[in-house]
């Protein structure tokens, strides 16, 4: 070929760097659509759930619904006062039990225990396992030991509280450990070098530095506890009681339990009121989670 012919041939070539193949472009688009679809379905699912219970239940949520007691026969005269009060009492019992026990266990595991010994590893794995045990098994535990069996206090408020506490305790321990671990070792070293003892260092430096993380975790754990139904069913929460619990040794119910009972009812009017109770439960959870997020944003220690 002459030089001119070669130059002409070179000009006819389109690009030096080849374009992306059609196949690769199509695969990319298909995959992206699949991902967007998956995320979209999650959104749609959440939206549908909220639409369902809010649509069914909001019309029923008024002051009489909140203040009346449930009737077993007449839906129009039913309310959720005993359920709300029961849930709030259970939450407090839970908080009183898990906060000290969870923090103490976390402090022991992070600050005192010898990490090289096999017992330490065993306790760690044990706690991770307990966090994954189905909640109904905790109900069985409560039934066997607390409601009946050695402690045998009967299906009362305290039994429900203790059962829920055992359920969320592993979660609180894990969260508290992470918050404590976030405190840098240099702070501990600085404190010890000044002549503080180990406990003084923990009490005056480590715990104050991790308290925001611990508090956030505790609130999230408690909000999980009050949404739990299965353990309370097995422990023997009362069905539609027309009274508030009047002491730790009183029969009780809770919002999730009331929701289950009404949902299972054959009368449609009760089923709809279950949705009303769901609205109240979700509102309560929303408040708690907002408090947790506010706490975290305001008080989180950035090292």
């Amino acid at each position, binding site marked *: 070929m002459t030089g001119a012919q070669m130059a002409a041939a070179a000009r006819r070539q389109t690009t030096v760097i080849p374009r992306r193949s059609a196949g690769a472009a199509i695969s990319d688009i298909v995959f992206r659509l699949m991902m967007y679809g998956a995320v979209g379905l999650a959104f749609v699912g959440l939206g549908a759930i909220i639409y369902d219970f809010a649509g069914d239940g909001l019309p029923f949520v008024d002051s009489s619904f909140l203040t009346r007691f449930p009737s077993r026969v007449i839906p129009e005269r039913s309310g959720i006062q005993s359920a709300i009060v029961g849930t709030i009492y259970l939450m407090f019992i839970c908080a009183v039990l898990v906060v000290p026990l969870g923090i103490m266990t976390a402090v022991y595991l992070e600050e005192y225990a*010898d990490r090289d010994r096999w017992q330490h590893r065993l306790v760690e794995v044990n706690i991770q396992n307990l966090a994954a045990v189905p909640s109904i098994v905790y109900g069985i535990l409560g039934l066997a030991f607390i409601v009946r069996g050695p402690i045998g206090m009967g299906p009362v408020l305290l039994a429900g509280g203790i059962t829920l506490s055992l359920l969320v305790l592993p979660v609180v321990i894990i969260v508290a450990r992470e918050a404590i671990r976030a405190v840098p070792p240099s*702070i501990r070293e600085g404190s010890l070098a*000044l*002549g503080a003892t180990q406990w003084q260092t923990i009490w005056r430096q480590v715990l104050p530095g991790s308290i925001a993380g611990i508090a956030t975790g505790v609130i999230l754990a408690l909000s999980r506890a009050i949404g739990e139904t299965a353990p309370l069913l097995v422990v023997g929460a009362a069905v539609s009681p027309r009274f508030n619990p009047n002491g730790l040794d009183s029969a009780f119910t809770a919002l999730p339990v009331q929701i289950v009972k009404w949902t299972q009812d054959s009368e449609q009017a009760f089923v709809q009121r279950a949705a009303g109770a769901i609205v109240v439960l979700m509102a309560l959870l929303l408040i708690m989670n907002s408090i947790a997020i506010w706490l975290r944003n305001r008080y989180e220690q950035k090292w």
Partner: protein
Amino acid sequence: MSEHVSERLEPAVEPPRLIPEPAAEAQPTESIFDVNGVAVFYGDHRAVTDITLKLRRNQITALIGPSGCGKSTFIRCLNRMNDLIPSARVEGQVIYHGQDLYADDIDPVQVRKRIGMVFQKPNPFPKSIYDNIAFGPRVMGMKGDMDEIVEGALKRAALWDDVKDRLKTNAFGMSGGQQQRLCIARALATEPDVLLMDEPCSALDPISTGRIEDLMLELKADYSIVIVTHNMQQAARVSDMTAFFTVELDAGEKHRTGRVVEYAATDKIFTRPDDKRTEDYVTGKVG
């Protein structure tokens, strides 16, 4: 607790001697640490070995040498900070005011109240400046006007004028150099007589470094200072005595152990050292 404080406020009383100090009057100044054959093990690994020297009162002693030769390990022996590492074991004696710090009946917590430490990276607590300084005295149960104690410590650390109007603000808001002076003030608040400093300026800029070096020279009058430093010029500028550390490989070329090659007046180490290894290091022939 209170009997300890009243003991501190009385003039120094001669402690019961466990080991008779040889010819103390002949020494130019009293030795504050008498280190005898100290070796430190992490598990089976011998990290430093054979350290024997006397650290003197009201002097600045610099520990220099390349990385990894045990200077930090050694200085942490002087206030029992190596106890914090579970596998660490210390052999030999560290005699402080006539008592072996590693004797069975010695409480490390008490040791650290008398021997203060400043770390490489400033580590103020996430509290106010005031509470940082007050922490040491508070955990000791020191009696006395806390405001005065805090002011005194900050003045001795040449920080009072900078912060006197913002004592209640968070210490994290200070610059690196100020934070390190805060840590020095914090250590001084417990009224130690020794200050250990582990590369205190390595995380700071040159101006802050200069300020802290000036501060060290001022503090020398009232305290005894031991400083680990990577910076030879710093050692030459501030210290009275210098110990040069080196690291040796064992026969199998697997384990590194640190030891002191030479310990003498700073002047001598930097101009007419006895050992060739020292000379190679200070003239920059080896890193």
